[in-house]
């Protein structure tokens, strides 16, 4: 694909700078340009997805420097898939932000949005561990801006916490990278995959420490217990569309775990063995439990959905922690589903919040404007999020259960099934307080603008979920090949052309 590989990074970067320099005083123009850029990004990622599935992994050498010395971007099936998912979610949520007027409540929304996309796309593409850190920082600094977009006391306080937590995470990331570099002398991921199996036994302890520190960094991103504390407050306080985009940011953590612990630290590595799987699985199961119980006890709709996002990360990490091709395939399917479902749910929560001024679940309030429509959307999204048939969440969970074999089978089955039941209870409680009992309450909510574009965006996400369900067969076939490629990274390593030196 040649130079097309770098366009998902360059296009949002140029667009962000363009919109901050020239369009900052013209909301209409920045809406048009920013949406056009995201749509173009979606088209390009579609092209890259096609190329990656036909040609196999391909490497872009930045500045034409050879692989272990220069920085590389690697396009393989997994990164192409994540790029496409990001672009799709970003386009739809951006339409929602325009339709609901969120982007008019503060300056530079569209510029920050583009910089955020640049960071996320870069993190998915990079084949260099230090460059991964840099793109993490790019996406984080844009997310800080988006998180406090439109301001307000509670949002700023939650924002300070979010930034402080992530700064500690960045420091940990640097400590891990420096340890890896001091042991191996390289930070190129493919080069690490080649060098680590031949590591002398004296360095095993160092590389284990580095691997665990790296896992903690990704656990912060992926909101894995015990490092999930930042998520509920952040997602509950962030503007609705921003929380919906953040649904893909937790997946950056999951992506990094899949990439690093299948490529750099596979369980055949003598230094670490099954160490990471042993750490990841209990944490994932506790995450599931914490998320599901949080949903049951949440005091507002925003917090409920935030805990829903934690639960889906728990389910995802349970599948990832098994590190078998079949479980990885199931995890990828569930990752597609949970990103879209969480995005839709955050948008619906924002629809409710904007009509009622509070998402509180503590008391019954009068019906909303457009009551029936929002209630129906909530119902569909709740079915998707809880993993009930007929939507893709059910298929995803079924595939994860099906891929689970061996000693932990009973534990994993009961954790996933039990948490699903608790999730249904939590969502049913929220739905009945928000929509069902309202007709018995006197009074009406003040009228509200119709916002057709906002509803189109929510519908688009739900249609994407339905499409994922209908096309489960072909999608799963493609994902199975992707998982096989991940667990046999020879093609990925060969694409870096390390032996040419």
């Amino acid at each position, binding site marked *: 694909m040649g130079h097309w590989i770098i366009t998902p990074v360059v296009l949002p970067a140029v667009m962000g700078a363009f919109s901050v320099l020239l369009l900052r005083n013209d909301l209409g123009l920045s809406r048009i340009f920013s949406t056009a850029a995201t749509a173009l990004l979606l088209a390009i990622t579609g092209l890259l997805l096609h190329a990656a599935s036909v040609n196999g992994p391909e490497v872009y050498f930045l500045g034409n420097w050879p692989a272990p010395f220069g920085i590389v971007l690697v396009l393989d099936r997994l990164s192409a898939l994540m790029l496409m998912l990001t672009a799709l979610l970003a386009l739809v949520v951006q339409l929602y932000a325009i339709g609901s007027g969120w982007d008019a409540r503060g300056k530079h929304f569209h510029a920050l949005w583009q910089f955020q996309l640049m960071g996320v796309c870069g993190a998915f593409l990079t084949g260099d561990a230090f460059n991964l850190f840099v793109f993490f920082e790019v996406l984080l600094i844009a997310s800080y801006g988006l998180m406090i977009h439109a301001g307000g*006391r509670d949002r700023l306080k939650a924002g300070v916490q979010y930034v402080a937590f992530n*700064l500690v995470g960045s420091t940990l990331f*640097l*400590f891990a990278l420096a*340890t890896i570099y*001091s042991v191996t002398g390289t930070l190129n991921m493919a080069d690490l995959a080649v060098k680590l199996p031949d590591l002398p036994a004296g360095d095993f302890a160092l590389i284990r420490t580095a691997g665990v520190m790296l896992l903690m960094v990704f656990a912060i991103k992926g909101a894995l217990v015990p490092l999930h504390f930042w998520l509920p*407050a952040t997602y509950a306080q962030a503007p609705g569309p921003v929380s919906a985009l953040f649904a893909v940011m937790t997946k950056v953590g999951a992506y990094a775990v899949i990439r690093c612990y299948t490529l750099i630290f596979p369980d055949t590595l003598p230094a670490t063995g099954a160490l990471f799987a042993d750490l990841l699985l209990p944490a994932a199961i506790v995450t599931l439990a914490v998320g599901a119980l949080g949903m049951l006890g949440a005091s507002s709709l925003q917090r409920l959905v935030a805990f829903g996002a934690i639960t889906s990360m728990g389910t995802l990490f349970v599948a990832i922690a098994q590190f078998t091709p079949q479980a990885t395939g199931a995890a990828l399917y569930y990752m597609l589903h949970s990103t879209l479902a969480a995005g839709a749910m955050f948008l619906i929560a924002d629809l409710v919040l904007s009509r009622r001024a509070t998402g509180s679940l503590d008391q019954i309030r009068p019906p909303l404007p457009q009551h029936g429509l929002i209630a129906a959307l909530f119902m569909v999204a709740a079915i998707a999020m809880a993993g009930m048939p007929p939507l893709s969440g059910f298929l995803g969970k079924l595939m994860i259960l099906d891929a689970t074999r061996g000693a932990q089978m009973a534990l994993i089955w009961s954790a996933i099934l039990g948490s699903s039941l608790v999730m249904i209870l939590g969502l049913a409680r929220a739905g009945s307080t928000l929509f069902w009992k309202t007709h018995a309450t006197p009074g009406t909510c003040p009228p509200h603008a119709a916002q057709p574009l906002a509803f189109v965006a929510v519908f688009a996400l739900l249609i994407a979920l339905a499409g994922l369900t209908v096309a489960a067969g072909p999608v799963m076939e493609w994902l199975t090949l992707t998982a096989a490629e991940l667990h046999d990274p020879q093609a990925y390593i060969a694409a870096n052309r390390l032996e040419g030196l």
Partner: protein
Amino acid sequence: MELLVAMAVGLMTAVGIYLILRLRTFPVIVGLAMLSYACNVFIFASGRIVAGLPPILSPDAAGYTDPLPQALVLTAIVISFGMTAVIVMMALGAFLEAGDDRIDLEGDAE
């Protein structure tokens, strides 16, 4: 010298973690700065500590020291500097809006 560098990294990390666990914004920001200093020294040491040698190949010099950690540390310094500026601005905003500099959230705002 190794012992001195290791002690410096350890001490700054300890101070940083202690300060981050305070509940006020100023100590937390100073703690984050200390932690990033510790991190920068650690990255610098990851290329092995060599005294008095240039980070480039030169026919006049007796040898060279690994240049890559210096490039990495430069990037890390720039990023941590920028991030510290961001958190200072956000902490000021939160202080002006809320009237206090506590970093924890009370129950209802959580």
